[in-house]
C-alpha cells in the first residue's frame, strides 16, 4: 500500500510535465506556428483556445495577430522645391502570412527594420517628387475663412495644390505594400505624422513671416493715417459748405429785405410831386436835428424864418 503510494507520486510529476508539453494556449491576439526541429509543420493556428501538439519535439512560435504600429524615425529630406524638411511617418501593419514572415524575418525587430528601410526610402522618393505645399495640404480648392480685421490686407491665401497629402501617402503606400507583402506583411496604412522645417530653413521662414507681418502692420498704420486724413478733409469741406451756404442765405435775406424796404419807401415818398417835396422838407428838418448839437455855434440873421420878427420889432422901436 505504501509502495503504491510512492509509485503514484513518482508518476504524477512526469505526467504533469508531459501534459505541459502537449497542451498550449493560443491567445486571442496571437497566431501560432508549430516547428519541429526548427522546421514549420502543419498549418498556421490562428484560432485561439487550448491546442495539442507533440510534446518535446514540437515548439510553439507565437506570432502577433493584432494590427501593429510602425513608428518611423524622423528624417531630413529635401522636397522638389529644395526645401529641407524633417519628416516623421507612422504606419499600421499586420502579419498576414505568418509562415512567410517567420521564414524571412523570424522576429518583430527585423520586421521593423525592414519596414524602416522600405517605407523610409519610399517616403524619401515621394517627398522628393513633390513640392512642400503638396505634402502640407490635403483638400484641393479649399477657400479659407478670412478674419474680418485682416480683410483689407492681401494675405490669408492658401497656396494651390495639384494632389495633396493623402494622395502622396497613397503613393508611398502602394509603392511599399508590394515590397512588404513578400515578407508576409500586409501594410494597412502609412501617414505623415510630423512635417517640420529643418533647422537651417527655419530662420528664413521666420524672417519671411516677420516681414509679412510687418508689411501688414504698415498697411494698417497707413490705412489709419489715410482714413484720418479723409475725415479731416471731409471736415474742412463741411465747414466751408456750411459757412458759405450760410453766407449766401444771409446775403439773400438781407438783400431781399433791403429791396422790400426800398420799395416801401419809394411807394410812400414818390407817389406825386408834393409828396416828394414834403419828403425833402421833413428829411431836411430831421437832418438839422442830428447835425446840430450843443457845441454848434449858430449865427442866425433876423432874416430867418424863426427870427424875422426880431429885426422888425427892433427897427420899429428905433424909428
Amino acid at each position, binding site marked *: 500500500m505504501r509502495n503504491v*503510494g510512492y509509485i503514484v507520486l513518482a508518476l504524477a510529476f512526469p505526467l504533469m510535465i508531459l501534459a505541459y508539453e502537449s497542451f498550449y494556449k493560443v491567445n486571442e491576439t496571437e497566431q501560432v506556428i508549430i516547428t519541429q526541429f526548427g522546421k514549420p509543420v502543419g498549418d498556421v493556428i490562428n484560432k485561439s483556445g487550448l491546442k495539442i501538439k507533440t510534446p518535446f519535439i514540437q515548439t510553439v512560435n507565437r506570432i502577433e495577430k493584432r494590427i501593429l*504600429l510602425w513608428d518611423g524615425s524622423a528624417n531630413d529630406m529635401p522636397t522638389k522645391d529644395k526645401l529641407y524638411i524633417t519628416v516623421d511617418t507612422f504606419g499600421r501593419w499586420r502579419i498576414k502570412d505568418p509562415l512567410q514572415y517567420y521564414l524571412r524575418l523570424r522576429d518583430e525587430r527585423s520586421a521593423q527594420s525592414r519596414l524602416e528601410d522600405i517605407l523610409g526610402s519610399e517616403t524619401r522618393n515621394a517627398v522628393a517628387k513633390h513640392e512642400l505645399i503638396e505634402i502640407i495640404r*490635403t483638400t484641393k480648392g479649399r477657400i479659407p475663412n478670412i478674419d474680418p480685421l485682416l480683410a483689407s490686407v492681401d494675405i490669408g491665401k492658401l497656396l494651390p495644390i495639384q494632389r495633396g497629402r493623402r494622395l502622396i501617402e497613397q503613393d508611398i503606400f502602394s509603392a511599399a505594400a508590394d515590397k512588404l507583402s513578400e515578407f508576409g506583411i500586409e501594410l494597412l496604412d502609412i501617414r505623415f505624422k510630423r*512635417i517640420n522645417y529643418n533647422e537651417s530653413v527655419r530662420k528664413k521662414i*521666420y524672417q519671411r513671416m516677420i516681414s509679412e507681418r510687418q508689411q501688414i502692420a504698415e498697411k494698417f498704420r497707413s490705412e489709419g493715417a489715410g482714413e484720418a486724413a479723409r475725415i479731416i478733409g471731409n471736415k474742412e469741406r463741411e465747414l466751408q459748405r456750411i459757412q458759405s451756404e450760410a453766407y449766401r442765405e444771409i446775403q439773400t435775406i438781407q438783400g431781399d429785405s433791403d429791396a422790400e424796404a426800398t420799395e416801401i419807401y419809394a411807394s410812400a415818398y414818390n407817389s406825386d410831386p408834393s409828396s416828394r417835396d414834403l419828403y425833402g422838407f*421833413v428829411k431836411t428838418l430831421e437832418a438839422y436835428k442830428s447835425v446840430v448839437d*450843443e457845441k454848434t455855434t449858430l*449865427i442866425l440873421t*433876423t432874416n430867418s424864418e424863426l427870427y424875422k420878427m426880431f429885426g422888425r420889432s427892433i427897427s420899429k422901436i428905433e424909428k
Partner: protein
Amino acid sequence: MQTKMKPPGFDVRLSPSRISLVISAVILVMAFLGSYYTVSAESVGVLQRFGHYHEVVDPGLHFKIPFGIDSVTQVPVKRQLKEEFGFGTPGATFSQQMTSATEWNLETTMVTGDLNTALIEWVIQFRIENAFDFLFKVREPADALRDVSESVMREVIGDRTVDEVLTIGRQDIESSAQEKMQEVVNLYQMGLRIDQVQLKNVNPPRPVQSSFDEVNEAQQEREQMINVARGEYNKAVPRASGIADQKIQAAKGYAMQRVNRAQGDASKFNALFDEYLKAPEVTKKRLYLETMIEIIPNINQKIIIDDAANSVLPLLQIATPNLVKNTVKRTQK
C-alpha cells in the same frame, strides 16, 4: 520544507498519503483564491478561456475557472481618458496621457497651408467604446491614438492659413479634427470613441511673436487715428452748423426789422402827407418851427444878428483864422 504547511504536534515522518494530502490542500487553497474576481464599477471584464475570448462581464463579483484557464482583463470603458499634445498636466491617469517634455516642442510645431509655422497645443478626450476591439484588434492602441491625433491635427492645420489657425478658425479646427480622428480610429478598429478635441495654446513661433503683436498694435493704432480724426470732425462741424444757423437767424431778424421800419416810416409819412395836403404852407411852417424849438435850446452859443449889421462879425471870437483874416481885411477897407 518539512515545516512548511505542517501544523504543530504532527508527526514529522513523511508518508505518500501525507504528501498528497498537503499537495491537495495547497491546490484547494489556490483553486479557491483563483476562482473569483471583481470588476470595478467603471470597467467591464473581458474573460478569456484558454486564451480564447469567452465573454464580456459587467461590474461586480464573478467566478471563474482557476489555474490560468480563465483569465480576466479589466477595461475601463466608462472612464473619460485624455491625451495631451505639446504639454502635460501632472498626475496622468495612464502612461500615454502625455509624452516627455523634450517631445513637446516637436509635437506643437506645425506648418500651415500658407507655409507659415504655428505652435499648437491640444487635448483629446476619448473613451473605450468596444472592449473587444480595444484588446484584440490593435496592439498599443493608446500609442496608436497619439500618432493618429498628431497626423490628423497636422492634416487639418495644413489646410488652413496661419491667421485661421491663430484667430478665427479654432472651432472649425476642433470639430473637423475630431471628425477625422474618429474616421481613422474606426478604420483601425481601435474600439475608441473620440469625445472631444480641444485646442489649448495656439501661438506663432517665439521669434515671430513680436511681429504678430505689432500687427495687433497697428490695428489699434489705425482705430485710434480714425477715432481722433472723427473726434475733430465732430468737434468742428456741428458747431459750425449751429453758428451758421445763428447768423441766418440774425439776418432774418435784420430783414424783418428793415421791412417793419420801412413800413412804419412809410405809414408815418403817409399820415403826415394826408395832413399836409389839407394845408401845405401851415404844416410846413409848423414843422419848421417845431424843429427849431427842439434844436435851438440845446445850442450853447447862439448869435442873432440883424440882416444889415454885417460889421458885427469881426467882433466875434470865432476860432477860424481864415474867417478872422477875412473880416480884418474887410474892416480895413
